[in-house]
Structure formats: structure tokens, C-alpha cells
């Protein structure tokens, strides 16, 4: 069988095996790489540093469980940065497929680690149906949509929420997102209600966000695991994101090799097919 034919008919499970190995092997040789900070990550970090200590920020968890390995490290870095600067966090989620539960877990774990108290230092408002109604409704008054938090406690009985009832009472919105809900945070909450927005997103979402950053509709961006690793470096805490970059590099090289090899096979078979 000619080389081209053999290249063409390779069983894809060999490829799966190769990918599996290239994920596991780098874990046994913890090689860390120098992380070069992109300007979008630096801008987001500087914005968080410029806010006065103790100011109230919103950290919406617009994430599905499917992308946690990318979004959770970014969320933890954002929450840790906020708690480090004694900021108060108001959180919520418009993702009915798991968002509020993820927000609840991450905030409780990071809150306990930083000695913060629920209701005073951070609040999770939970979920309400229809993100268009929620984002627009909260513009006039948060209480028109959220009269209770995620576990049903009345909002008025939470000390943190006493003087917070609209986007104007919030200094900054650090959105964690893996879906198009973020476009509505930018175009409704940002443009219509004038809030300042930065975001940590999955790599799939990042390319579109550059249009918002260039237009000043977004002040900073963390793109995928790489963005997370950069932000962790700025905060001085090498965590999950950084550890994954070794395997990331190996698999990318492998996929590039597959693209090249696949096309070599393609051109060979096309050249053989052409009449001599």
C-alpha cells in the first residue's frame, strides 16, 4: 500500500492514544515555562489594583460545568485578588445548567480560605430565568429581580446588600463567562447602564472580545488557560493554570504535526490520482 494510502487510512484510535499520552506524560515532569503577560491581562490586573480597597464589585459566574478546567482557575484568581484587596463581592449567574451551584462552591471555598463571612464580604444572589429580563431589570433595581439570595435569605437582611441596589453602586464588574451571555453584559449593562466591565473567558470566546476591548467596551480580558496562568503569575500564585501549560505545548505541536502530515497525505494521493 503506497505511503499516501497508509497515511489516509490510519485508524483514528492511534491518534487518540497519542493525545492521551501527551497529556499524561508532562504531568510527571513538572516543567514550567516563562509566561509572557499580554496587554489585555495586564490591563485587567491594573484595573483591579486601581480600585479603592474595600469597594464592592460584581463577579457574575456565566459558566456551564463543561468548561470548568478553563474558567474555575480564572474565577479563583479573580476572587482571591478581590479578597486580597478587602473588596466585597456580589455574585450571580444566568446559566440555569449549573452556574449558581458553581458560584456557590467557588465563593465558599475561597471565602473560607480568606476568612471572609457570607453576607458581609460576599453574597451569591443565585439564578433567575431569562438573562435579558434579569440584566435589564437589575439596571433599574437589583431588588426588583432578586428579593432573596441563592439559598432564599431575604436580600435586605444581608449587610453587604444594604447600600447596593443597582449597577451604579458597584465599582467594577469582573465577569467569568464561557457563553454569549457576556455580549449582553457588555451591550446592556455596559452601554445602557454605564458599568465598567472586565472579563475572564474561555479561549473559544476570546477572539470576539478583542472587538470590545478595542472599542473600550471592555477594560481587560483573560483568554483561556493561558490568560489564567498570566493572571496567576501577576498575583504571584502558580496554581492550576500554570501546571497545564506543559501538556498544552506538547499537544499543540502534535496537532500542528497532524495538520501538516494530513495535508501531505492529501497532496500525495491527489498527485497519484492525476493521470501520469
Amino acid at each position, binding site marked *: 500500500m503506497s505511503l499516501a494510502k497508509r497515511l489516509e487510512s490510519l485508524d483514528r484510535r492511534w491518534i487518540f492514544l497519542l493525545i492521551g499520552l501527551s497529556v499524561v506524560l508532562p504531568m510527571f515532569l513538572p516543567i514550567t515555562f516563562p509566561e509572557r503577560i499580554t496587554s489585555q491581562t495586564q490591563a485587567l490586573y491594573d484595573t483591579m489594583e486601581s480600585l479603592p480597597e474595600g469597594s464592592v464589585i460584581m463577579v457574575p459566574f456565566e459558566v456551564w460545568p463543561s468548561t470548568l478546567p478553563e474558567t474555575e482557575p480564572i474565577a479563583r484568581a479573580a476572587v482571591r485578588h478581590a479578597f486580597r484587596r478587602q473588596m466585597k463581592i456580589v455574585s450571580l449567574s444566568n446559566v440555569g445548567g449549573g452556574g449558581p451551584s458553581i458560584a456557590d462552591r467557588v465563593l465558599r471555598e475561597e471565602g473560607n480560605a480568606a476568612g471572609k463571612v457570607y453576607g458581609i464580604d460576599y453574597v451569591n444572589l443565585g439564578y433567575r430565568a431569562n438573562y435579558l429580563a434579569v440584566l435589564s431589570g437589575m439596571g433599574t433595581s437589583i431588588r426588583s429581580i432578586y428579593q432573596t439570595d441563592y439559598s432564599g435569605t431575604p436580600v435586605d437582611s444581608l449587610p453587604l446588600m444594604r447600600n447596593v441596589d443597582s449597577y451604579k453602586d458597584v465599582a467594577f464588574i469582573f465577569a467569568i463567562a464561557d457563553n454569549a451571555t457576556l455580549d449582553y453584559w457588555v451591550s446592556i449593562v455596559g452601554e445602557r447602564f454605564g458599568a465598567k466591565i472586565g472579563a475572564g473567558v474561555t479561549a473559544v470566546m476570546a477572539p*470576539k472580545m478583542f472587538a470590545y476591548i478595542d472599542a473600550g467596551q471592555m477594560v481587560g480580558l483573560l483568554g483561556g488557560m493561558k490568560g489564567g496562568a498570566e493572571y496567576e503569575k501577576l498575583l504571584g500564585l502558580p496554581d492550576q493554570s500554570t501546571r497545564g501549560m506543559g501538556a498544552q505545548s506538547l499537544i*499543540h*505541536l502534535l*496537532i*500542528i504535526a497532524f495538520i501538516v*502530515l494530513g495535508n501531505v497525505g492529501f497532496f500525495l494521493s491527489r498527485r497519484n490520482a492525476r493521470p501520469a
Partner: protein
Amino acid sequence: MRGPLPLAVAFLAGMFMIVSFFSPHPAVEKASGDFLNWVSIVSGFSILLGVVSIAQNNLAKVKRRQKEWPYAVVLLVALAVMLAGGVLEGTDSGTVYDALFQNVQAPMMTTMFSMLAFFIASAAYRAFRARTLQATLLLGTAVIVMLGRIPVGQAIYDGLPDLANWIMAVPNTAVQRGIIIGAALGGAATALRIVLGLERTYMGRG
């Protein structure tokens, strides 16, 4: 009465939203806040409807002993357990509902999406062909950006990460902006057709 009533309701609800967009008057703001709470409540019922139809679907599959009906039983049991937990005990941390979500549902969804890395690799080898000039341009840029995003790329050519970031910040920004503007015009046209009663397909044939 059956035809124009929904259209009138859609027109009034849509126009009130447009009016409240333009009017900062406190009375309008208060009214729109409460109105949007109503919209959120009614939307919640439509999600419940989706769950009921999934349950109905699978119950029918079991009743008629259709092909693969045992799997439908598995689905219904999992649904019942989760629903009972959420209703009786609540959904926040420390409940059965939350434990099932954090330890079973969420990891499974992450696992499913993680399989895509395998499929991308096999497709990169078996299907991604530079058939046309356009596909060649696409695959070429993809390779540059992929190399620029990993430290090894930096080792190959020091300027690669900056090149990759420049591709994102300039040509990509221009295209994303062009697509955003074009799509927003399309979206506004669709939304206006619904508000003005020219569009009925969203109500389905039901």
C-alpha cells in the same frame, strides 16, 4: 380572538421595553423593573415545560417498550432523584441536589467536552485539508496562532507570540467588528419583525 391576541401582547410588551429604554423617568423605571420580574417568572415556567416534555418523551418510550427503553428508565430515575432533592431539601451547598451536581453532573459534562480535544486531533489529521486558498489561509493562520500561544513557539522565534497577539488585536478585531455589526443589524430586524407582528414562526405550529 386567537390570532391577533398574542400579536397584540407581543407588540405591547415589546413597545414598553423600547419606551422604557428611552425614558429615565422614575415611574417608568419602577414599572419596567416589576414588569421584567414578571417576564422572568413566566420564562421560568417555559423551562419547566421543557423538563416535562423530556419526562413525557421518556415515559412514552418505556410504556411502549421502544428500542433502548431501559436507558429511558435510567434517565427518569436520575431526573426524579434530582428533582426530589431540589424540591424537598433545597439547592444550595450541603444538599443532596448540590452533591449530585458537583460530583456527578458537572464532572460528566466537563468530560464530554474534553473529548473534543481527541476529535480535533483526529480531524486535524483526517479531515482538515487545504482544499482551497481560503482553507489554506485559515490553516496557516491557525498554526501561527497555536505556536504563538505556547512557550515552545517563543523558543522557535522570539517575535511569534507578539505576531500571534497582533493577529488577534488588528485583523481579527476588524473582522469580529464587521461580523458584530452585520449580525446586530440582522438581530434587530428579527426582533423588530416579532414586535411588529410580522413574525409568527416563534409561536410554533403547536
